[in-house]
């Protein structure tokens, strides 16, 4: 009975959910980073990490993290100290907040959660405007990028940051347009609602154009190959991260991998049916969600091994000439079908 009372306190439930989200936010990027190390290595006829943790280098990224913490935190003399120090936080906090609203499983049938604890189910918080929240908050990261680039007092950093900002402006639009077509079809802005609406069929089938646009735009927003011009290492060293060392650099890297996981998760919820499985329905919903996130993230890694990078102006051309018009037509078609049927 005491146990029951303990869990009926909304603050306790909320704290537990926050802890779970935080742990997922810290571990999922590590797992993804390890998969990238090993996956890339095997695609390129290498072995990848083999030493740390004895078994196929499983502890490599933990070792990397410890190393980042130990390294000296260098702030260049010419840098704007406060902004320089603040930039990694501005980049990483929005990414971590996205995980708060991603639903991993269906709402439980017998719900005992107290009011104010975000409903019951495998999610941190069920906002009525979940998709809006996610897209709005993930765009904040670019401010951190600009801060890092400007305050570093390094020309390479500056070029990288400007490229990153230009890229985000170009790609935020197709991303939002593609997502709003899905919201229109589902009839709700809530991520939980969108996932639940894909009970009979996944939205990737009617929204295939939207899905492709969403994936391309996500890659551009994440600065992942083939759209990694903001950090193109052979041109501008490492873009806005050039002057960073130690744990601050580690935070930038963490936010990159967390960003891959979070945007994959959003794509899964919007298009790939969220927790809905196929063929083997007895596998629980959260496992399905994780498996789909993993598959999409692997696609991101795979692209890195395959493609060279585009040029910034070519990327802009692609966004404004192709992706945005196609996304607009997609919205129009969705609207017509929604009204007609």
């Amino acid at each position, binding site marked *: 009975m005491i146990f029951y009372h303990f869990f009926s306190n909304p603050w306790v439930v909320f704290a537990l959910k926050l802890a779970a989200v935080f742990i997922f936010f810290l571990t999922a990027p590590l797992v993804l980073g390890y998969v990238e190390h090993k996956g890339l290595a095997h695609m390129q006829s290498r072995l990848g990490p083999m030493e740390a943790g004895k078994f196929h280098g499983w502890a490599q990224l933990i070792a990397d993290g410890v190393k980042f913490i130990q390294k000296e935190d260098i702030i260049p003399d010419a840098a704007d100290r406060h902004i320089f120090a603040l930039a990694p936080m501005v980049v990483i906090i929005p990414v971590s907040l996205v995980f708060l609203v991603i639903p991993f499983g269906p709402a439980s049938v017998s719900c005992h959660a107290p009011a104010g604890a975000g409903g019951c189910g495998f999610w941190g918080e069920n906002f009525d405007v979940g998709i809006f929240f996610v897209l709005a908050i993930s765009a904040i990261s670019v401010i951190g990028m600009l801060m890092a680039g400007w305050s570093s007092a390094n*020309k390479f950093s500056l*070029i990288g940051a400007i490229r990153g900002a230009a890229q985000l402006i170009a790609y935020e639009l197709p991303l939002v347009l593609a997502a709003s077509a899905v919201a229109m079809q589902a009839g709700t802005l809530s991520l939980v609602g969108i996932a639940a609406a894909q009970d009979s069929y996944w939205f990737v089938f009617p929204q295939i154009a939207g899905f492709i646009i969403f994936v391309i735009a996500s890659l551009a927003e994440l600065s992942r190959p083939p759209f*990694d011009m903001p950090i*193109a290492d*052979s041109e501008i060293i490492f873009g806005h991260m050039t002057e960073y060392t130690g744990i601050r650099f580690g935070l930038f890297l963490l936010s990159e991998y967390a960003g891959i996981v979070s945007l994959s998760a959003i794509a899964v919820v919007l298009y790939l049916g969220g927790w809905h499985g196929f063929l083997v329905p007895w596998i629980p919903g959260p496992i399905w969600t994780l498996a789909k996130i993993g598959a999409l993230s692997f696609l991101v890694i795979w692209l890195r*091994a395959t493609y060279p990078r585009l040029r910034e102006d070519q990327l802009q051309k692609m966004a404004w000439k192709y992706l945005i018009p196609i996304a607009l037509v997609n919205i129009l078609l969705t609207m017509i079908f929604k009204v007609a049927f």
Partner: protein
Amino acid sequence: MSVTELPTAGMLPGGPGEGVQVVIAGDEFPTQEMTLSIGPQHPSTHGVLRVVLTLDGERIDTATPVIGYMHRAFDKLSEVRDYRQIIALSNRHDWLSAFGNELGVALATERLMGLEVPERAQWIRMLMAEWNRVLNHLMFLGSFGLELGAMTPMFYAFREREDIQTLMEMATGARMHFTYCRVGGLKEDLPKGFLLYSEVLVKRIRHRLLDYAGLLLGNEIFKKRTVGIGVLPGEVAKSYGVTGPILHASGVAEDSRKTEPYLKYSEVEFEVPVGEHGDSFDRFNVLYHRIEESLKIIEQVHDKLPPGPVMPGKMPKYLKPPEGWTYVRTENSLGETGYYLVSRGETTPWRLKMRTPSFHNVSMIPYLLKGVLLPDLIAVLGSVFFVVGDVDR
């Protein structure tokens, strides 16, 4: 098309941070040119080439290569080394085509001394020179992709290079600085099993080349980045003294293996692949097809290799070429390498001047980079194949 003006030495910008204020009349938003120093330590310049750029936004206004960070006085040093020592010296400066370099020194000395090189040694020299060419070209195939952001070809290239280096180690005992040539012939004959492995390797590499074709030549993004970028007309290339794959890509099929055959190149069949437009893509394409041609030559050597000794019967203890001079040109991996050798009848040359292809390739940089975007700098620099040691000597 006329040759563009090179920035004079007085205009050379200083360190980072020194820009030139440019106010365009009537423009509401005055912009400032930015001076950006790419190198000597920068991921895109393999080695220590420094390129000083003035940028207008991301567009390159002027580009000035600064060379000399790796000057090791090869020319001067060879004036105090005897001819056998120079062979070991000459495969240091261009570490990617070590055999091709030592071959030239041996050829020049032999020509001055009037030595007759045994048939078998000549064929083996050709075999090794072509393997070295493949080794070199694979490196550039891989690194060009890496600079454009495709990391996989680099690792594939090193996989193949590893095999070839193992093969060359069998014969020479070294993986990089082979020192296999001797004045008059070769250090020793090929070991047992060398030809067998060589045949296997030709087949393997020919098969694996398809990987590169799939990853880069047929890749839409790769084409978008390289087609029409850094166009070099054949006439301009000739006026700058550019040779090798870059000249061939501009449509000029000048190859000293064809026009002035040395060794046994007149007895094997091969083609000189040429490009059409002289852009970065053509340069890469020519490099790719040069590997195929080299593999063809290697196969013909396997068939035609005659038995016999690899060194002439009796060699003098001290090599003293008679007084005089000679100029030998060889088609090295990156282009034409010339050896101007002057002897005064002593054990050391009076002068040995090398004409290296990378130096001339680098001299193209200001012409090719004018007006291109910063990301295209990579596509241009990666396709102007050079080794910094070969530039500076």
